[in-house]
């Protein structure tokens, strides 16, 4: 039986072989310099992540404060959020570019995720609708903002399904999670980014679906090492909501 050779660890200073420990027994050089340097980067990473969240939050508050929501304002805010996501993501391009690859693409997995996302969205839509109409006696539709425009439906899909799917994933499971992974472990990065994702939507009740949704997307992102499954799930989840609204309106009108 041929014995497997374990890779030899050499001192970063004098190239002496290091069998055990973190210091070279010949020159005394610490061998965890790189790890110590990474620890020095942590505070800076946190500040960058903090600035990013602050900008996103300000944009969300703007959307929340504007009483007379119009298509122009909605799209302007969408573009502002997309621009912020792109700017931060590309600023740390060397760290983040690996997330745009799709290393272990599986069509079966993608279809399964997409089907589950559509079912989850449908279930949630009906529960939310039931609570709104039966318990809160309110009728709420996202389409109200877009219905005045000739291409309202397409704009709604762009604003509610395409933009959030691409840019929220780029922001939260992309840039933010990558920054948090420098500071904390994988699980904590998932929980923090999911919590911030939920908070940024400024809706306490969404705790029951946005937080679990974000945690699932975060786990997929960590496991698959790509944001693309998340983008697909997010897109189908939001698109289903749009399509159900269109269907309800058409059904109601006819």
């Amino acid at each position, binding site marked *: 039986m041929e014995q497997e050779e374990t890779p030899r660890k050499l001192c970063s200073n004098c190239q002496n072989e290091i069998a055990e*420990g973190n*210091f070279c027994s010949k*020159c005394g050089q610490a061998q965890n310099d790189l790890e110590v340097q990474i620890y020095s980067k*942590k505070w800076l990473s*946190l500040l960058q992540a903090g600035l990013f969240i602050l900008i996103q939050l300000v944009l969300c508050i703007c959307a*929340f404060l504007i009483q007379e929501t119009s298509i122009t304002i909605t799209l302007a805010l969408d573009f502002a959020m997309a621009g912020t996501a792109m700017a931060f993501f590309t600023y740390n391009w060397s760290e983040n570019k690996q997330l745009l690859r799709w290393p272990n693409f599986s069509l079966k997995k993608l279809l399964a995720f997409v089907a589950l996302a559509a079912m989850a969205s449908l279930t949630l839509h009906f529960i939310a609708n039931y609570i709104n109409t039966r318990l809160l006696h309110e009728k709420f539709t996202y389409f109200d903002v877009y219905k005045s425009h000739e291409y309202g439906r397409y704009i709604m899909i762009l604003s509610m399904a395409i933009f959030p799917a691409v840019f929220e994933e780029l922001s939260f499971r992309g840039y933010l999670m990558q920054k948090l992974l420098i500071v*904390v472990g994988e699980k*904590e990065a998932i929980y*923090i980014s999911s919590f*911030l994702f939920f908070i940024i939507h400024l809706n306490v009740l969404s705790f029951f679906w946005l937080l679990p949704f974000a945690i699932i997307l975060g786990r997929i992102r960590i496991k698959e090492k790509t944001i693309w499954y998340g983008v697909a799930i997010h897109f189908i989840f939001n698109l289903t909501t749009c399509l159900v609204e269109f269907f309800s309106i058409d059904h109601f009108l006819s």
Partner: protein
Amino acid sequence: MENIANNDCSCCYTKYEINDLFCKTCGFPFQGTEQDQKNFLSERNVKEIDLESLNEKVATACKSLYWLSGLTAFSAIVIYFSSAGEDQLATLMTNIFLILSFLGLGIWSKNKPTAAMITGLSLYLIIILLNAVISPMTIVSGLIVKIIVIGALIKGIKAVLEVDKLKKELNID
């Protein structure tokens, strides 16, 4: 073969071989001058003292999460009994959510202080910002408490990062 007999490092008490010039675990200079060895030990002692004081800062910051939960509970009771109207229930629900969140983060901070403090600080700052948007004067109310809590959490996060770095430098797990 008495030459290769193991000895204990006078700094970290790890066994070493007689040919070693430095300790593999802590970097202590076995063959250095007495002055070199003293300097090494004093530098290490300083770092260990720093580590202790940083750990105290982390503990204070973790406690501030419980304080935040308590303060939110107190203000929730005051708001609930001093206001009336449609928003009363929604405000109470939001406050209960916040109380439980800070309490949960306080408990989480025992195992994962960095993550708990980052989440706690973000949540607290977001609440202050949202309150200020709805009613700008809220930013002034309880300003000293806000500064103390934010200061404690920021110091706590910095301290916990510094603790990790020092532990790596000192080779402590």
